[in-house]
């Protein structure tokens, strides 16, 4: 696993930490913040922050993996081409069979 991927995964764990595992600690009404009972405020806060966390993960992965990502794309393209070749061969075979 690349370093970018590992950092992104670490960021991706934050919503699980705050929105699942922290719940027993925040299950209370006080203090009321911006009109919301605390538990609801906490959930809304992290729901709202998650897109920004994911955007950060996206940027980090892209920056650190820059070259690697391109290599991967090239590799895929080659694979797809090979596959199309295979398909072509199969079709030819079918034709021969028919």
């Amino acid at each position: 696993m690349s370093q970018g991927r590992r950092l992104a995964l670490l960021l991706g764990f934050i919503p699980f930490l705050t929105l699942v595992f922290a719940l027993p600690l925040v299950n209370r009404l006080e203090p009321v913040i911006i009109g919301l009972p605390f538990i609801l405020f906490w959930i809304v806060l992290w729901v709202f922050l998650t897109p920004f966390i994911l955007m950060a993960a996206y940027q980090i992965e892209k920056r650190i993996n820059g070259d690697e990502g391109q290599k991967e794309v090239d590799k895929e393209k080659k694979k797809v081409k090979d596959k199309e070749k295979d398909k072509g061969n199969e079709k030819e075979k079918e034709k021969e069979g028919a």
Partner: protein
Amino acid sequence: MSPALLIILLTIIISAALGVYAGSRVKMNLENWTVGGRRFGVIIMWLLMAGEIYTTFTFLGASGWAYSRGAPTFYILIYGTLAYTVSFFILPAIWKVGRLYGLHTQPDFFIHRYESRWLGVLVAAIGVLCILPYLQLQLTGLGLIVEVASDGAIGSKTAILISFVLTCLFVYTSGLRGAAWVAIIKDIMMILAVGIVGIGVPHIYFGGFGQMFRVLMEKHPGHLIFPGASSNMDTLWVMSTALLTGLGFYMWPHVFGSAFSAKSAETIKRNATIMPFYQIPILLVLMVGFTALLVIPDLKNGDMAFLELVRVTYPSWFLGFVGAAGAVTAMVPSSVLVLFAATLLAKNVYKAGFAPEARETTVLRLSRILVLIIMVIALVLAFYYPQALVNLLLIGYNGVSQFFPGVVFGLFWKKATRLGVVCGLVVGFSLAATLVFSGHDPFLGMNAGFVALVINTTITIIISLLTQSNINNDESSKNQE
């Protein structure tokens, strides 16, 4: 004709016309019909996903739960956010495999990765079993919404029948592309309805949501912390349910399948980062439910809280608008659900199981016929046996979530084997069903489906490790990252 009635009828007719038009400009083949030709960009993907995620459950169910159960409803805010986070990591990989090997459906993925047609048939069968009650729920919800919103002018059966014909029409002609286009109308109306009512009602009755919550905390002090007004949905239940549904969300065959419709893996990733913003309207829906509890406290059926509150607060034409939004909100998910159920049956049960030589045009023709058959089944169930599928609905999420180990290990763990995944899936699904039907949900305070998922994962890992020796290590790892 009353203005409310006119708005409802116009909306569903224009929606269906747009859906038909969407498909009229492309030549229909299986690729175009099921995955929109794999050409959807960020915006249309976003609209389609919103179309699938906001079902009638969002309208009626979430506000109803907020009304009758209180705090446990917060899991809805949480699980969506978790689901999008998961999708950021797994969906691009699923898309890549799909693009490389021309996959259309979730069972296609299992067939490809584990090299077993019968595993594909099993996955397809479980998928359809979970989709059918969900589809019926959309139809029943639609009938209810239109009947209330039109003040009885259109009966629920008539409403279901009209929307059934129109939905079949645009699914038949345009496939997924039709659903994506109708989703545009639906999303705009839905956001308007939820925005106006969600911000409006706390303001009208209490001068703002802050005051509304203060009154609520005084009158019902337990309502807003777990376990709320429920007896068995405490913190542990919320945690396990949020995890189960968050991990399971993309395992729904139709949601999984829509990953294939994206233009690129990049599109999916960028889409995933903005998806959590979808959750904000749900917060507004919850506010409506809470306000309703204070304003109209004696409803027999909590699910009617949203519509009843609109009825007593706003003029009747606006109730019509909300009803119209509710109707298209049922039509879009219905169309996607029936489309994928039909494709699963045609491609992964009929073709993979019984007629491997069937050509793609045959599969497409069969899929289209199956759309009509499945919709008729759902219609009959909605009309005559509305309660028959409630049991199945209970295990919907628990059921599809059991695909999670097979998918994630399939993508990222070279050692996962066919036998491991089959055993995990069968045990997980049976256990979830047994616990739910024997009344043991929640089990030890946790969501029964979550318990089953943990055991499923454990079994998948252990049996995969035990069956390593039977595998040629080069072949099993061909589509790994």
